[in-house]
């Protein structure tokens, strides 16, 4: 008679608990990737976060994606959620998120990112699920997914990087391209008639009861970059505390397709984007 082997205990979430062999405390590492030994130069006050791989990125000089990727990694480290977090990459310049973030990341078909995140979060509510999307992924092809994920109030976080153009495919118009802005598909500048007005995403979904924390930030100076990181952290905390759907829009430079130098691109955000896309919290949890 064969002895039956005991069934492995299964958690409420449906998966056996596996102890993570990797050390839990994220350690700061040098830019060269070495563990932090006692340093004759003193205490490191700024360096590469543990959740960011030591991989030079493919982003252009002055692109905002490098900043936002780093900020997401810093927030993940500071909240200690590296073993719980799952990111969903878009189709766009940020498609290679899995090459840069040192935690679980999935791709998604263009625009379906919030739907993928919904499937993940419903199947594993204990995971911290965020999407990272550009203006095309979120507000063009992904409009339906954005609206309905927000309306259902899925407890996920959307990081929305708005650079007013389609970078990856060569600088075409985006839903957030400004009036008069010249792009590959608006060679004479975007016109309101025919192309419509640029979309203001957080304002658009604010009326939905399901949306809880909606904020717009920018990367045009150190103060705004610090604020952007704080808002990303607040959005993740919103999810951790089961408050509900959060979205952080980040006005980000695209020097290449704005045909500006990196420094002029920061000025363009300040002079052109911020007047149309006002910064601040559009909706906060009660």
């Amino acid at each position, binding site marked *: 008679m064969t002895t039956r082997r005991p069934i492995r205990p299964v958690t409420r979430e449906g998966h056996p608990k596996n102890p993570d062999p990797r050390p839990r405390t994220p350690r700061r590492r040098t*830019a060269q990737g070495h563990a932090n030994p006692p340093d004759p130069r003193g205490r490191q006050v700024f360096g590469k976060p543990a959740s960011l791989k030591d991989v030079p990125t493919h982003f252009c*000089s002055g692109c905002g994606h490098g900043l936002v990727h780093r900020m997401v990694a810093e927030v993940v480290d500071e909240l200690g959620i590296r073993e719980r977090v799952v990111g969903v990459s878009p189709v766009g310049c940020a498609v290679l998120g899995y090459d840069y973030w040192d935690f679980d990341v999935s791709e998604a078909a263009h625009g379906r990112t919030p739907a993928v995140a919904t499937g993940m979060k419903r199947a594993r509510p204990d995971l911290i699920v965020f999407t990272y999307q550009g203006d095309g992924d979120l507000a063009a092809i992904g409009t339906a997914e954005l609206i309905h994920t927000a309306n259902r109030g899925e407890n996920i976080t959307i990081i929305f990087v708005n650079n007013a153009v389609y970078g990856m495919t060569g600088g075409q118009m985006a839903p957030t391209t400004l009036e008069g802005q010249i792009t590959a598909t608006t060679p004479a500048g975007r016109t309101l008639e025919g192309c419509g007005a640029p979309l203001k995403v957080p304002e658009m979904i604010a009326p939905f009861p399901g949306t809880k924390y909606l904020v717009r930030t920018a990367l045009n100076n150190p103060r705004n970059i610090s604020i952007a990181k704080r808002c990303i952290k607040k959005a993740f905390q919103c999810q951790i505390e089961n408050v509900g759907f959060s979205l952080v829009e980040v006005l980000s430079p695209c020097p290449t397709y704005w045909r500006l130098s990196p420094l002029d691109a920061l000025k363009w955000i300040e002079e052109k984007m911020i007047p149309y896309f006002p910064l601040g919290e559009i909706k906060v949890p009660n």
Partner: protein
Amino acid sequence: MATIIINKDRCKACGFCILFCPKQLLQMADDLNLRGIHYACVRCEAECTGCAICGLVCPDVAIEVFK
């Protein structure tokens, strides 16, 4: 007294750190890195307070700050 270490080959010469250092302690080097472009370097470390704004604004994680 603080120390700035810039990984010159990660630098893409965006110029953010040079622009935003409150004491203008950074500048573009004369020579080229492996990318074939000029890179940001420290002009005068003695006055650095370790505010780490340079690291904060660097999109390429090229800067480490020690205090």
